[in-house]
C-alpha cells in the first residue's frame, strides 16, 4: 500500500469516525434535554441512562477520530469547537425531541440501526473499532430492548398514544433513509474492512422494524422520498441552535480547563 493511498484511507477513516461519533453525541445531547422532565421517574432514569451511554460512546469514537486525524485535537475539541458544517451526524438524530413519543420513536429507529452497525463493527479489521463496538453493543442492546418495548406498548395502548406514535413514525420516516445510504467514504472504510456498507444493514433493520411495528399496530409509511445531507455536513436548521447552546462555555472561555 503506497503512502498516498494510506493517507486517503486515514482521511476517510477520520470522516467515518466523526459520523459514528457525532451520531452518538448529537443523539445523546438531544436525549439529555429530557433529564428531569420525563413523564415518569423510571423513564427519566432510563432516558438519562441512554444519554449517558451515548456520551460515553462519543468520548471513545471522537477520541479515536482525533487520534486518527493526528493533528493534536481531542474528542472535546471535536465536540465543542466544530461549527455545524463540520458535523457528520445523520439528520435523524438532530430532530427536535417533540413529545416523549417522538423522542422514543427517533430512539427506536436509531437504536435498531445502531445495533446492526455495532454487531458488524465487532468484526472490524481495526481492533480499536472492534473494541469500542463491543462495549457499545452491550449498551445499545439494552437501548433497543427498551425503546422497542415502549413503541409496542404505546402503539398498542390508548387511541391517543397510538396516534401520537403513528404520527411520530410518519414524521421521522423520511429521515431514516440516510442511515443506509452509501457514499465514497463508506466505500473506502468498507474496502478496508473497517466497517460494513450502510446499505448492508438495511435488511436487518427492516426485519426488526417490521416486527416491532406489527406488534405496535403501527403502519410503516410508504413514502419513498428521503432527506439527506447530515453525513456530508449539510444539516437542518436545528443543529446550529443545538451547538450554540452546547458549545457556549468552550466558545466563551477559550483555552480554559474545566
Amino acid at each position, binding site marked *: 500500500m503506497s503512502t498516498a493511498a494510506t493517507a486517503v484511507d486515514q482521511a476517510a477513516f477520520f470522516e467515518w469516525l466523526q459520523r459514528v461519533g457525532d451520531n452518538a453525541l448529537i443523539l445523546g445531547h438531544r436525549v439529555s434535554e429530557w433529564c428531569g422532565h420525563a413523564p415518569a421517574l423510571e423513564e427519566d432514569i432510563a432516558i438519562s441512562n441512554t444519554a449517558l451511554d451515548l456520551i460515553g460512546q462519543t468520548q471513545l469514537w471522537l477520541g479515536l477520530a482525533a487520534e486518527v486525524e493526528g493533528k493534536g485535537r481531542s474528542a472535546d475539541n471535536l465536540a465543542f469547537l466544530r461549527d455545524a458544517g463540520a458535523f457528520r451526524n445523520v439528520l435523524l438524530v438532530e430532530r427536535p425531541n417533540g413529545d416523549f413519543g417522538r423522542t422514543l420513536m427517533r430512539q427506536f429507529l436509531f437504536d435498531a440501526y445502531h445495533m446492526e452497525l455495532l454487531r458488524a463493527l465487532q468484526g472490524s479489521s481495526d481492533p480499536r473499532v472492534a473494541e469500542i463496538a463491543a462495549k457499545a453493543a452491550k449498551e445499545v442492546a439494552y437501548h433497543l430492548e427498551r425503546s422497542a418495548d415502549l413503541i409496542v406498548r404505546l402503539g398498542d395502548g390508548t387511541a391517543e*398514544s397510538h396516534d401520537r406514535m403513528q404520527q411520530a413514525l410518519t414524521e421521522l420516516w423520511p429521515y431514516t433513509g440516510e442511515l443506509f445510504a452509501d457514499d465514497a467514504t463508506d466505500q473506502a472504510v468498507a474496502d478496508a474492512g473497517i466497517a460494513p456498507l450502510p446499505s448492508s444493514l438495511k435488511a436487518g433493520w427492516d426485519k426488526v422494524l417490521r416486527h416491532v411495528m406489527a406488534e405496535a399496530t403501527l403502519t410503516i409509511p410508504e413514502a419513498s422520498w428521503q432527506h439527506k445531507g447530515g453525513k456530508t455536513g449539510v444539516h437542518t436548521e436545528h443543529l446550529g441552535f443545538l451547538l450554540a447552546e452546547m458549545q457556549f462555555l468552550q466558545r466563551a472561555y477559550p483555552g480554559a480547563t474545566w
Partner: protein
Amino acid sequence: MTPQERAFQERIDRNEKIEPKEWMPDGYRKTLIRQMGQHAHSEIVGQLPEGNWITRAPTLERKAILLAKVQDEAGHGLYLYSAAETLGVSRDELLEKLHNGSMKYSSIFNYPTLTWADIGAVGWLVDGAAIMNQVPLQRTSYGPYSRAMIRICKEESFHQRQGYDIMMKMAAGTPEQKAMAQDALNRFWYPSLMMFGPSDKDSVHSTQSMAWRIKMNTNDELRQKFVDQTVPQAKYLGLTVPDDKLVWNEEKGGHDFSEPDWNEFFAVIAGNGPCNAERLGARVKAWEDGAWFRDGLMAHAEKSAARQGALAAE
C-alpha cells in the same frame, strides 16, 4: 402515653428498627410520610437546577458526570417514594400534593444555577449540607427509610466530591473562572446554611421527632458541623466565605458565624423565591405532558392482562 405507645417508644430507644407492617402511632406515620415525601420531592425538583446545565456542560466528561448525578437524584427519588409507599401512601398521591402545593420540597432548589461554577457549588455546598442531614438518618428508626438513606448517602458523598472537584478546577482556572467560583460561593453560602432549618428553639415538632429518631440532631448542631467542615475547604480553594463575622472560636471548638436571613428563608418557603414558580411549573408540566404516555402504558398493560386471561380461559 398508652402502653402500646410506651412499648413502641421503648423499641425505638433500644435502637430497634420499625418495619412497615408493625404497629406505629399515627403521628409517627404522618410525620414520616411528610418528611420522606418532602425528601423525595426534593430529589426530583433537585434535578432541575443541575439539569439546567446538562446541555451546556463544558466537556464530554463533565457532561457525563453531571448526567449521572442528576440521574442518581431521580433514583434517590424512586427509593424514597418506594420507602414512603410502605407507609400506605402512593407515589401518585405524594406527587399530587407536590403539584398542588400542599407538600414542599427543599427551598434550596428555588435558587437558580447561573454559571457552571454553580454546578460545583451545588455539589460541594448543597450536597454537602444534604449529607450532613442524611448521614445520621441512616440510623433512623424506620427500617425502609434507614435503608434508603444508606444507599443514598453512598452516592451523595461521591456527588459532593465531584462538586468540589469542579470548584477546584474553577478556583485554579482563569481569572473569570475564579470569579465565577467566588460568585457561586457568595450566592449559595447562606441558602446552604438555611438547609438545616431555623434554630430548633423555635420548633415544636423537633422534640417529638427526635424522640422517635426521625430527626437525629438539632438543626443548629448540624449547621455548626457544616460550617466547620466547609470553611477550611473554602480556604483551600482560595475562596472567601461571604461572612465578615466568621471567626474560629477556640473556646467552643468551632466557628462563630452569621445567621442567614431567616426572613428570606420564610419568604422562599412561602413561594417567594427566585425560581419557585418555575421549578414547580416544570414538574407540573412534565407530569401533565406525560399523562398520555402513562395512560398508554396502563391501557397496554390492561390489554395484555385481558389477552393473558383469555388465553388462560381457553
